[in-house]
């Protein structure tokens, strides 16, 4: 088998220039987006590099997990990562390496009329390119996943902003799903900020919470009670008509807390209770 691989490598080396030209033409014709995204120069450079590596590596084996293939994996991995970040689809990304097959086969066919040998060569080429294609997919997926993780973390950090909107008055806009993790984070941030800013009032705005059920209500009550212990007052704003009706039917009792329908009313209430005026 290694004889075949060596011969394949030789054949590849011999026709490298021709294959390279054909590959580039194919890429420009078939994967316009991809070429546009990485630029013509980089495409030329990458294709040349991959092809050069390819013929050199074939004679040492066809398992791309081998150490020899490290450089090759790096080129394709970097390319795949770049394309992920540029929002290329996985099939577009994989077109890069898979189109090499289409460039090699016609050249080999011209060179070799002997069907049996040609078959063997193409099998070798296929085996390696398929692995490289899968590798491209894997890297693509990994980069996507790490992107999602980063975004999750970034989201968690901004998920509970505490804004000082007036002297001794804080505002905490709550958005989305209020689960226990975020409630915990919200409580901690709110209580620390109350202390740091010497604030007396915290306005919790729930306009951005789509469904206010008993769990959300319980979290709000807990946060408000904790603030109360510190001598601060919690005003819950953003209770729209539909939420108000729902809460009453649900039997949630928020009568122990100051509530308002709009943030503006909440601010007015907060100014009054801290005996301040605007202007």
């Amino acid at each position, binding site marked *: 088998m290694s004889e075949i691989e060596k011969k394949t490598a030789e054949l590849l080396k011999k026709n490298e220039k021709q294959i390279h030209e054909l590959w580039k033409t194919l890429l420009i014709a078939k994967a316009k987006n991809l070429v546009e995204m990485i630029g013509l120069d980089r495409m030329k450079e990458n294709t040349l590099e991959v092809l050069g590596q390819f013929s050199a590596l074939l004679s040492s084996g066809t398992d791309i997990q081998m150490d020899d293939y490290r450089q090759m994996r790096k080129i394709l991995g970097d390319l795949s990562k770049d394309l992920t970040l540029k929002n290329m689809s996985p099939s577009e990304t994989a077109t890069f390496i898979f189109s090499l097959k289409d460039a090699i086969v016609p050249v080999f066919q011209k060179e070799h009329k002997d069907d049996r040998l040609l078959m063997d060569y193409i099998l070798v080429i296929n085996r390696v390119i398929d692995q490289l294609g899968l590798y491209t997919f894997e890297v693509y997926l990994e980069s996507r996943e790490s992107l999602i993780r980063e975004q999750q973390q970034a989201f968690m950090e901004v998920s509970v902003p505490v804004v000082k909107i007036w002297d001794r008055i804080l505002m905490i806009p709550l958005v989305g*799903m209020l*689960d226990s993790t975020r409630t915990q984070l919200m409580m901690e941030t709110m209580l620390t900020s109350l202390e740091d800013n010497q604030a007396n009032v915290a306005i919790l705005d729930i306009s951005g919470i*789509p*469904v*206010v*059920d*008993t*769990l959300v*209500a*319980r979290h709000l009550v807990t946060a408000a009670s904790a603030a109360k212990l510190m001598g601060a007052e919690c005003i819950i704003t953003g209770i729209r*008509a*539909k*939420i108000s*009706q*729902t809460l009453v*039917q*649900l*039997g*949630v009792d928020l009568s122990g807390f100051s509530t308002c329908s709009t943030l503006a009313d909440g601010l007015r209430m907060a100014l009054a209770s801290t005996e301040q005026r605007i202007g």
Partner: protein
Amino acid sequence: MKKVSDSLKINVEVMDQEDVIVVRQEIRQLMRGLGFSLMDQTRVVTAVSELARNIIVHAGQGRVEAYQVIDQHRIGISCIFTDEGPGIHDVQKALEPGFSTANSMGIGLGGAKNLCNEFDIESALGKGTKVTITEWLK
């Protein structure tokens, strides 16, 4: 009352909080499609949120189904919440405000009953619980 076409149907397995969000969104969408007002949507979706969370909290996992129903001249939506959890010992008591076995407010189940037009609960100890709620389009 009878079920209508399978085209408008939701069938979701709930296993964690994320699934509750999915169920809420899908039911809201179904209701919006049927022409329910925003107020009705909010009430029912809140009840759905309570009941779906009950499945997670008490049974660990279960299933939520929803479909359009027709009764003579009116149309509505029915949602069924089934689980194979421990069941409820005393259903009447569980519906009373303040009764909780899970360290919560204890108003979710009774609240859900108040939030929709029809509410039906069947529960057998050790076998599981099935809650059906129905809301009619006015």
